[in-house]
């Protein structure tokens, strides 16, 4: 299936034109993208470490999850909105970029894993039987998204 027209459509959106045509808009949007990423990844990272046995003063993984879930959710919203804004400003360029599609695929996998599997497993006080597997999967997926995202700027 030829996806190019979809990329072109994003390129032609008003927000895409605005960000592409404004010197400060792209780096400013990207700053929010990265700060939200740091918060989201920071919170998930703490839960992952807890599942791997790091003892944060006796605070359980479920207690961490309860406290941090709203920050993870809000950061995710900000990341996706700013991500679509950034994408729209150079969508056809992203089409040519070898790192872009792996990143999107990894991101979709990470989101499905996080909201479909991880969230449900860490919500309960009982330590999940596959705690280490959950933590490593989460770490590797999100780390992969970050690395692939960084690679977009390099390739």
């Amino acid at each position, binding site marked *: 299936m030829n996806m190019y027209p979809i990329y072109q459509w994003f390129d032609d959106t008003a927000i895409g034109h605005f960000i592409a045509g404004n010197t400060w808009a792209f780096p400013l949007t990207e700053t929010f993208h990265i700060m939200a990423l740091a918060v989201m990844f920071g919170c998930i990272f703490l839960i992952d470490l807890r599942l791997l046995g790091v003892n944060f003063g006796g*605070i359980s993984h479920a207690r961490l999850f309860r406290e941090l879930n709203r920050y993870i959710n809000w950061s995710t919203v900000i990341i996706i909105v700013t991500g679509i804004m950034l994408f729209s400003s150079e969508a056809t360029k992203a089409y040519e970029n070898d790192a872009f599609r792996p990143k999107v695929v990894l991101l979709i996998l990470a989101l499905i894993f996080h909201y479909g599997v991880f969230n449900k497993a860490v919500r309960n006080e009982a330590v999940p039987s596959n705690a280490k597997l959950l933590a490593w999967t989460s770490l590797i997926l999100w780390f992969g998204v970050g690395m692939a995202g960084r690679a977009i700027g390099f390739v």
Partner: protein
Amino acid sequence: MIEFCQWLQDLGWTTALRESQFLFPIIEGIHLLGLAFILGPVLMLDFRLAGIAWRDQPVSRIANAFVPYSVAGATLMFVTGGLLFAAEAVRCWNSAWFKVKVVLLIVAGANALYFHFKTQRGWGAWDTDAVPPPAARMAGILSIIFWAGVVLAGRWTAYTL
């Protein structure tokens, strides 16, 4: 200083690092993701001090639970950041954003030390308060602002390099 930067980046291994196709971006990727490692624990205490999160937990419990791990994160950031700086020392030194970043890091560190050695001393009186007194709240809010500034200046350093 600029002579030192020139000397540093002309060393064999720093030259190799700068010209490497994969190593430099990989270290930069680790540096970027290491942000989570340092900001995760730091923000927990900042949020608690600002009265945003963990309001039902004693401040001392949150500080003791998370702050020690921020040291590990800081070490990772200094090592990877130091390597990146060594490879691009002259351009970093000539970058205004890089200087802003270094200043903000120092200010964020000073804010944390001031809290640790001064404000924190009196926390016996407000340890369990949902919203700590103004001096402690200010320490948390300033920390969040300074760190956001570090991230912003760091990103723009990479942009303008």
